[in-house]
């Protein structure tokens, strides 16, 4: 016979979607936030991101080759690059390089590769890396540069408190204290446009609301994620902190300010939606999102740290297998009659 026949089971066509495409689209969706960060914090933002990405990729390559002895190279799938980007986005731009490298080793080496690499990890590697660093190096991780010091600043950047830290002060102190007055004064200096365009202190990738929303639009348009997780988180935070604000406006921040401050948007759009560590069904994703929103508000208000997003996501990561077991998609035949 002249022709060789290829035989396989159906389906014989494929959508053309791939792991790489999804990972690279998330990376592309992060680029606007990175650019804004460069404008706010200068070259330090770029250096920190580069170190983080490079060390994540190197660690994955080395562990895969020398420890797992896997002949297939896994760094081309883009997941290590993405972890590197997200890890950097969760750090101040003036952090010491060696701290970044330790964080990358923990994220890739401990959280991702020990569980079996891509698809097998229980926790989001970048967030677990951040949490590890926050606990191990609390000073370095919570000394944020103030924005607008020029493009050349890196380790020498001047630092200051973030809006979220002032909100915490407001909550912890009675209205008649000096600290409370100072917090109100500092917060009143921050204008809405500062929060929208990233002109506030904070982690490298979290400050620019507009860029993060643009990233969300890219992810939704390219069908990398669905709306369920980000929207359920944001709505929960808005409603819950709104209720608290109505009950006691002196101690709690405006719910819109809550939404736009800290790592909430970065977490809701890019971290909680991580494929591997989020639930599979739509209902499960909604439950997961609502729980993250709830935990975030609780931690922000009553926890030891001003920021609650990363811990909320990590806690819910641990519940994902249970959620997957409990919340199934609606089967065909269980949907009620239309009309």
């Amino acid at each position, binding site marked *: 016979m002249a022709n060789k026949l*290829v035989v396989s089971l*159906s389906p014989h*066509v494929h959508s053309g979607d791939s792991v790489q495409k999804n990972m690279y689209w998330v990376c592309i969706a992060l680029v606007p936030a990175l650019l804004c960060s460069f404008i706010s914090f200068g070259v330090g933002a770029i250096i920190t991101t580069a170190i983080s990405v490079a060390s994540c990729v190197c660690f994955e390559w080395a562990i895969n080759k020398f420890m797992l002895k896997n002949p297939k190279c896994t760094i081309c799938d883009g997941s290590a690059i993405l972890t590197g980007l997200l890890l950097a986005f969760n750090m101040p731009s003036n952090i010491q390089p060696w701290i970044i490298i330790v964080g990358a080793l923990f994220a890739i080496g401990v959280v991702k590769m020990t569980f079996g690499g891509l698809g097998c990890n229980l926790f989001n590697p970048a967030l677990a890396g951040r949490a590890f660093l926050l606990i191990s190096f609390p000073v370095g991780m919570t000394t944020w540069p103030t924005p607008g010091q020029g493009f050349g600043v890196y380790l020498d950047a001047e630092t200051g408190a973030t809006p979220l830290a002032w909100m915490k002060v407001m909550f912890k102190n009675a209205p008649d204290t000096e600290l409370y007055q100072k917090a109100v004064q500092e917060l009143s200096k921050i204008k809405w446009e500062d929060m929208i365009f990233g002109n506030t202190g904070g982690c490298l990738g979290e400050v620019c609301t507009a860029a993060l929303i643009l990233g969300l639009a890219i992810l939704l348009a390219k069908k990398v994620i669905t709306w369920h997780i980000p929207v359920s988180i944001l709505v929960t935070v808005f409603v819950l902190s709104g209720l608290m604000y109505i009950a006691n406006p002196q101690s709690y921040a405006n719910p819109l300010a809550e939404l736009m401050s800290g790592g909430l948007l970065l977490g809701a759009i890019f971290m909680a939606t991580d494929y591997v560590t989020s639930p*599979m069904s739509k209902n499960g994703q909604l439950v997961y999102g609502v729980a993250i929103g709830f935990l975030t508000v609780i931690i922000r208000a009553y926890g030891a740290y001003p920021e609650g997003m990363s811990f909320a996501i990590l806690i819910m990561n641990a519940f994902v297998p249970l959620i997957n077991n409990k919340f199934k998609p609606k089967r065909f035949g269980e949907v009620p009659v239309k009309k």
Partner: protein
Amino acid sequence: MKTFRIGGVHPAENKLSAAESIKVAELPKVAVFPMGQHIGAPALPCVQKGDKVKVGTQIGKPMEKALSTSIFSSVSGTVLKVDTVVDASGYKKPAVYIAVEGDEWEESIDRRDKLVMLADKPELIPEVIIEKIKNAGVVGMGGACFPTHVKLMPPPQFKPEWVIINAVECEPYLTADHRLMLEKADEVLVGVELLMKAAKVSKGFIGIEENKPDAIKLLSEKCAAQHPNIEVVPLKTKYPQGGEKQLIDAVVGRQVPAPPALPVSVGAIIQNVGTAFAVYEAVMKNKPLFERIVTVTGKQLKHPSNFLTRMGTPMSQLIEACGGLPDGEAKVIGGGPMMGKALVNLEVPICKGSSGVLIMSGEDARRGEPQPCIRCAKCVNACPMGLEPYLLATCSGKKMWDKVEAEGITSCIECGSCQFTCPSNRPMLDLIRVGKTTVMTNIRARQMAAKK
């Protein structure tokens, strides 16, 4: 625009032969008729070596007291042998081989090209129509090949309300149904009326996807003019809308419960548009089912075409008529790209369920390399049955049969949407098929044990 409510994907349509009028395929030199061309028991050969047959002569009798139907010769000539053949499903089946001599038809077949309306034949009561359909060997032409007369006689506890005609042709590449609707619209519509009368229902729907606007327009106009009780329902183009359950959901908004429930349990009888045409010919023209329209297509094929093909014609002959196989390795698929079967042998004959022959070569013929599951949930979102394909596949791979049964694996319609959409190229449906077959066997074994 209407469509089904759960899951679904939209593969590239690639309807290359949509504008190609139906051509009559040449007669083969030897025609081969597998006796099992339908769901159920194979027919029993009723001719012997040396017998002379005409076009339309019965050569296979239905097995008695079983789900079965007749097979007819599509050619005139001499029976060469009664043997076996490997058909498009890949299984060996008993078959009748006929050497073709001339083209002499049975006298009982009305070969005049005159449209017969239902009103012209008042003697056609439901029982007569069903008997004629049964005697002509008509089966579902969409690919499943369920004997049509059985579908028209549901168990007495069910009351059919509508006949829904499946004209969505949701498989990419295939255009046989599309061409049939454009070129035989009147016959198809009379066929629908016959089906409605046989099923004793007063309302018929024809579901057509919006990527066939010319067919929607033509049939809508004809229905408005002559067939007021038939309604054309345009549907949003989405795969697998041609799945029986998906089509019912799309057209009338009812969902058939999990197996063993039947479509008729929500009041619907589904028939393919090709079946409606075959019913017209069987009832009005006394013409048994021995030819059908076959799309022969593929991006690398010189002349993608639609052929009116006699059953028993080898697929290789149709491929040659379109310019032959492209160079290098190729995948030849009986049916469409989503659910068709890759052939191991191009000499397999066209059967009642052969809607198309698709050739894919080069890169297109190969699967992508599987990567780890990244738990993106795209398969869960794509599944039209609301199942969790990643879970069914993983548990089937681990032989957790009780688990996959509890997760509803028997509801899987094997449409392939999960595997189509998987960014990691995971062979999910391969594993799910293994699991589904095993679970079905287990269920039957339990039922047998319970009876004892």
